[in-house]
């Protein structure tokens, strides 16, 4: 279970997260929605210790992330797959090496690594792209490689940072299907950060709206779709102010 406990974070004196509290149950996919620049990605980066909170903490299976030493943080990161907004693939490495990189930190033989890479690439429909470089891939393919890199590690948790941003509607739907398939195939707990409502409705078990540094509302997809909260309503309907 992942718990955000009264998380606070400011940049240059400007508060971004201001008492962010949320519980993500095992086996479910929770989608965090909210306007651009409201701190959704910032919250996600606290889960893997890429950012240190000003106050509060993220608790992963009873471990307070900000208090972990380097070895414990590395152990925690081995349990979590992170899919970055723009995939964050290593430019100089082939698709194979990008996916294999995390596996090389584990006690696996070269054959086992190759098998895991093939399996992950097959799951994202990229079999045959092993030798291509990231620069030769489309935006959607890059995101799929990013997902393959995360799932190849067979993590307990997967964190998706804006997985469909910048993609056309069809490619976005493919990525959504992929996230659903990943959850069903690997039974992982997921957190998806997005402002794409169609994606949120497709992949989420629960949806939480982040507004002014706090959770404004959290509920099932149906509860969010029927909300009477004017702020959440305006956001999910995409109405200008």
């Amino acid at each position, binding site marked *: 279970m992942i718990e955000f406990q009264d998380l606070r974070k400011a940049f240059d004196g400007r508060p971004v997260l201001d008492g962010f509290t949320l519980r993500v149950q095992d086996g479910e996919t929770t989608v965090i929605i909210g306007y651009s620049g409201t701190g959704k990605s910032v919250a996600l980066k606290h889960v893997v210790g890429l950012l240190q909170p000003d106050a509060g903490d993220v608790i992963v299976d009873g471990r307070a992330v900000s208090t972990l030493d380097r070895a414990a943080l590395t152990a925690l990161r081995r349990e979590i797959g992170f899919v*970055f907004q723009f995939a964050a693939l290593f430019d100089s490495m082939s698709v194979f090496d990008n996916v294999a990189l995390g596996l090389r*930190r584990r006690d696996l033989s070269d054959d086992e690594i190759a098998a895991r890479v093939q399996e992950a690439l097959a799951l994202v429909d990229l079999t045959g792209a092993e030798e291509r470089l990231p620069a030769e891939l489309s935006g959607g393919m890059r995101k799929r490689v990013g997902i393959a890199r995360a799932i190849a590690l067979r993590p307990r948790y997967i964190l998706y940072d804006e997985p469909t941003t910048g993609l056309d509607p069809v490619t976005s739907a493919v990525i959504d299907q992929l996230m659903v398939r990943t959850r069903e195939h690997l039974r992982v707990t997921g957190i998806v950060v997005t402002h794409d409502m169609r994606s949120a409705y497709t992949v989420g078990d629960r949806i939480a709206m982040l507004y002014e540094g706090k959770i404004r509302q959290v509920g099932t997809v149906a509860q969010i779709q029927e909300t009477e909260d004017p702020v959440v309503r305006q956001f999910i309907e995409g109405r200008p102010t």
Partner: protein
Amino acid sequence: MIERLGRKTVDAIKAVGGFGHFVGDLARAVPDVAVWGRLTLVQMRRVGVDSLPVALFIAAFTGVVLALQASYTFTGTVPLYFVGTLVGKTMMLELGPVLAGLALAGRVGASMAAELGTMKVTEQVDALETLAYDPQSFLVLPRVLAGTTMFPVIVALAILTGIVTGWIASLVLLDLSTQEFLKGLKLFYRFKDTWFGLFKSATFGCTITLVGCVVGLSTRGGAEGVGRSTTRAVVYSAVLLLVLDAFWALVLLR
């Protein structure tokens, strides 16, 4: 005014603290040999082989110019074989290490700052961390070790090139014989001349690569930030290199 001064002082203290923290993290990455060992060899090839043409090109012309300037300065009052002395001493003690160092600050330091800066702003460094890699052992240590070990090799070859071109210029342009040039070269030669230049160039290599990595990994804000980091890496490296040059002269040559 006082407020601005105070802010600058705080920023300077923060920068020093940040650098200390960075070096501490680097030291903690040393036991992670499985990661940095293989990558160091890759970086040694990049730093060494790729930088060699620039360093040798500069050294070749420096050797010729030194020989001609020596002959011009001596104006018949000093025996011409002293051209060999001046070319050898100057290449070994100063111009070999410093000119190659300055050229490589632009070549190696800038390219490291740009590469790591781009990785930083495109979240590749964050991705490395989430894959349980320490950026210090994956990115920084291999580059710093490669710089520290390869710079003396590059400088040694640059010194040799400068002396050879100085000798050829003496033969062809100054009517000096090989025996006379070698006589001058051996005159006042001490083994310290060699190790001083090579030791100095190792510290230059360490400094240039460390600055490139520190500046690159502190990059913020897209392509413009990468550009700023690249420029900053070259300027800081060049300034530190000259300061270090004076420091070693003061400590080791007095």
